[in-house]
């Protein structure tokens, strides 16, 4: 099967620091890829480039066979790559329904891109999207700030599902979560496979990565130092190269 994402010789410098040193990586459709590495290993940089928050200084990315350049998060989202962060993908002071549709609000009518939101559609579709990931919340009007960490990740995943993402990047989604909540998020990631979604799961916690990924990619000092199937490698092997 052709890779859904083909990364070739990606370079990134930060004022003299060579953060990505010619990284090449193929991501297969429908696989769950675990990306591990210490702080400063370059995994965040790689993810930021894939999600459109940063641009590479050199190298190419092909997505579904076509060369792509994401200039901002919206470009990546429109292509079908959705990134879920531990903190910054939800606005706590806004309702679930409003959060689901930030930047992609269904409009009844619009002029120069500004228009009246279809509140009913937002409420219905957000409840449906939540139910689809088996998250049953009482009201779409509840504020996201009132949700637990795991529930928030559920809403973020439901949002990505609703907008038919093909690739979901989960950046440290289990950080600072209680054990039970962590299991829930890992469950979400495992269920992505059944829905035909490619997942890139970034974590400090190797246990979490092994629990839900088919393939482990480890990065250190801006390079990929290990790339193996999860069932062919042990946690110690991974820890040794980091």
């Amino acid at each position, binding site marked *: 099967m052709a890779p859904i994402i083909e990364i070739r010789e990606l370079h990134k410098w930060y004022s003299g620091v060579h953060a990505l040193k010619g990284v090449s990586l193929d991501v297969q459709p429908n696989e769950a890829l675990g990306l591990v590495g210490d702080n400063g290993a370059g995994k965040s940089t790689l993810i930021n480039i894939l*999600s*459109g*928050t940063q641009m590479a200084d050199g190298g190419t990315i092909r997505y579904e066979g076509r060369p792509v350049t994401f200039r*901002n*998060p*919206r470009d990546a*989202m429109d292509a079908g790559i959705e*990134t879920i*962060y531990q*903190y*910054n*993908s*939800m*606005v*706590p*002071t*806004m309702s679930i329904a*409003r959060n689901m*549709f*930030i*930047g992609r*609000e269904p*409009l009844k009518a*619009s002029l120069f*891109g*500004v*228009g*009246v*939101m279809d*509140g009913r559609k937002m409420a219905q579709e957000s409840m449906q999207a939540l139910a689809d990931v088996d*998250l*049953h*919340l*009482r*009201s779409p*009007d*509840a*504020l996201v*700030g*009132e*949700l*637990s960490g795991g*529930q928030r990740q559920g809403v973020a995943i439901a949002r990505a599902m609703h907008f038919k993402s093909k690739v979901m990047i989960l950046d440290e989604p289990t950080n600072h979560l209680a054990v039970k909540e962590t299991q829930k998020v890992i469950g979400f990631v495992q269920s992505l496979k059944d829905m035909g979604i490619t997942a890139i799961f970034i974590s400090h916690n190797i246990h979490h990565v092994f629990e839900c990924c088919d393939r482990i990619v480890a990065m250190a000092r801006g390079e990929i130092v290990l790339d193996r199937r999860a069932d062919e490698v042990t946690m110690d092997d991974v820890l040794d190269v980091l």
Partner: protein
Amino acid sequence: MRRLLKIYMEKPELAGIAFLIVLAVVFQVQSDGVFLSAQNLQGILGLMPEMALVAIGVTLLMICGEFDLSVGSVFALTPMVMGVLLADGVPFALAFPAGLATALTVGLINGLITVRFAIPSFITTLGMLFVARSLTVVISGGFPPIIPPDAMPREVFIAFVGPGDMFRMSFIWFVGVAVAIGLLLSHTNFGNWVRATGGFLPAAQSMGIPTSRVKIACFMLCSLLAGFAGTIQVMRLGAPLPSIGEGLELQAVAAAVIGGTALTGGIGTILGGIIGAVLIRVIDNGLVLSRVDANWFKLALGSLTIFAVIVNAWLRKKARAMKVETD
């Protein structure tokens, strides 16, 4: 209690409404029934729109996570530009838009500097407070320009209308603007972006919202409303004094905060800002009618502002502690 907190979280301006009713009752009793008389209400409603318009803009901007201390100066600069042009014989149809364009330009500069250099808008607009005030005095030469008597269509903006001449036209303008901005915030995608930008900037950015443009648009709207409010006041007074609007920026912030807007952004409603503005007018007016020394006004305003922030912070903390239940 739980239910009340939930309602409060959805409608933070309710606390202000409750307080307004209490105050109205107190002043009504204290003033021997004068406070709610038609004549006094006419006075309150005639002056209120000028400050309330400023408060609407400041509230919108604060929800977007930014701050504008220059509104008081823009309140003076806008009508001064118009007045100087009118005194030179320029027709109203050109002088009025020129004034508002000045206000928009100030807002644009405030926004561009704040976003471009990533500095607190508190500082940008503090600087602009002095700059715009200085320009006002400079272009007027320190004296109000003499505006020809029929140069301004005052009947469109300040004439008394309604049953028993209860309202001024400015009140109709104010209601129109309030409804428009209120709907913009609550029912449009732009409103969603404003709330997201002020509520949690990294999330808004990662969802691809043009946060810089949203902020600049809010700065411009805020400035425009302040300039429009100043223009209305000048039409009412008949001459643009260079000193009008001094201290107004802080009253507008107080109004927004009293109405439940959070200084941190993301939380608040236009109605809340208006209620805050009405509360300030009511306290001002009620103290006088109750024969309290007028110098107590600022003390009352200051205390109320601090009290409102404490109560809002406490209620918010309480409400946040409640988790959403799953079925």
